[in-house]
């Protein structure tokens, strides 16, 4: 896979102009993702209403892959139920492990499908995964399955 297709236009676009970047008023939950070794740091926050992600956003300083992945994730997650987003997470995990996924599943990922090339950079999978791990803890906290102070890492 060429560098240009790994760092494709969509990835670069999301990294340079991240969607859902910033703070949201009256968010009711946030989780920090921190990959200390490489210096990626994001905070994912959401406003959850009636079991749905009404608003979701992230802030932080991170590499192109982590920023783009966070942006794509939020794009996909807003307005969705916890189950819907959890399904996206499980597809994305397979995708990053280079396991085959159906066209339907690929569609489900939305823009995040553009991160296919990251699976060819084993040391960078953790960058693309950070927002999903933060989401995983957020979901568990919403379901009362995780303590409130969790900071996550994928290192």
């Amino acid at each position: 896979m060429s560098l240009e297709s790994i760092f494709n236009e969509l990835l670069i676009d999301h990294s340079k102009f991240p969607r859902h970047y910033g703070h949201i008023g009256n968010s009711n939950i946030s989780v920090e993702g921190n990959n200390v070794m490489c210096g990626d740091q994001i905070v994912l926050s959401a406003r959850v209403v009636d079991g749905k992600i009404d608003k979701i956003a992230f802030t932080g300083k991170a590499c192109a892959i982590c920023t783009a992945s966070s942006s794509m994730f939020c794009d996909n997650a807003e307005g969705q139920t916890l189950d819907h987003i959890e399904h996206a997470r499980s597809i994305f995990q397979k995708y990053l492990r280079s396991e085959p996924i159906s066209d339907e599943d690929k569609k489900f990922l939305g823009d995040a499908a553009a991160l296919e090339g990251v699976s060819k950079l084993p040391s960078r999978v953790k960058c693309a995964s950070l927002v999903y791990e933060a989401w995983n803890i957020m979901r568990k906290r919403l379901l009362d399955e995780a303590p409130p102070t969790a900071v996550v890492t994928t290192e």
Partner: protein
Amino acid sequence: MALDPALIRKSYPIYRHFAGTGETFIYLDNAATTQKPDSVIDAELAYYREFCANVHRSPHKLGEEATNCFELARASIAKFLNIDDPSQAIFTSSTTGSINIVANILAGQYLKPGDVILLTPSEHHSNLVPWQMAAARSGATLEFIDIFPDGTFDYDQVGRNWNPRTKVLAFQHASNVTGAIHDVETLSGLARHNGALSVIDGAQAVAHLPVDLNALDCDFYAFSGHKCVGPTGIGVLYGKRELLERFTPVFGGGEMILRVQRQSSTYNALPYKFEPGTPNIAGAIGLGAAVEYLMGLGMSEIASYVDALAEYACQRLSKVDRVTIAGPLTNRTGAISFNINGCHPHDIASILDHRGIAIRAGVHCAEPLMEALGVASTARASFYFYNTRDEVDQLVSALENTKEILGQ
């Protein structure tokens, strides 16, 4: 005589390997670990193949030969670092292992509550975390020298700001991030003058410049084999004789004792007192071969070759638009940390890797330094004597291409 990297590479299996496959192999991660020449690999192999036996205990020919080679390696290291007496060179696992031994000894037998351990904020975690542990154990506190944005500092100011409660001054001879080389002689003199012990992390320095421990006159000095063309898993702790004799070991076991009774033991002489159990025999023999190899090339020749190459690399890199170098331009090793505005170090490293150029990205085990430099992380290209100007040029053009790929 000036070093010839083309000739040097002929004795490195890894360069022969990639010359054979035709793959691009530009290895610029020497501050993490260096490549190994034939003589080092052969020395380790010879031990396992031809005279594998334990040292200092087996009364047979193989045991004698292994012991002999093991002690010859120690003698080579003593010559390499100009240590008067080889028994002051203790084999350990690494720089990290050496510093942990010293910090443990000082925490238990020397530091008192309220004492100060003075460090620089540039320390590798391996010369910081052991001192945090020593402070917690002894009731001492940590203080830090102020550094300039390029990682250097003002020695006079260290003297002027000296806290009389300082009992340990621990610092790196050279930084793995900024490449800055610090003046060990001046700083350890300052420590001695003020009644403190000096502990030097030589991990980056030993590979790059002639180190004369007699002249530097520090109390403890630590380094790792793998950063100076030697094997992994072997390092050295040097200590002043009176200190090594005064302190008791922190690890007990076989080999480090003279007599053992049910309730107590008497300890062996130096250096064995600090070398419990079966040591890394092959590693020590490999390290002996490594320092002989370096002495063969000449440490002054290595230093001037790498200095010139690093100067060239700094010049070329600083002309790349949006590149900032985090370190001094002179009096430095071959480790060059930099950032490109708008490009994250990890993205840079991945893209370069795709082009066959190996660099490192991240915080380089020096998180507090990143804070002091005001960056989250850096990219780092680190050069050694087998690297060339042509590789610097290829790095620079790959960086230009990286900016394009990342849309900058």
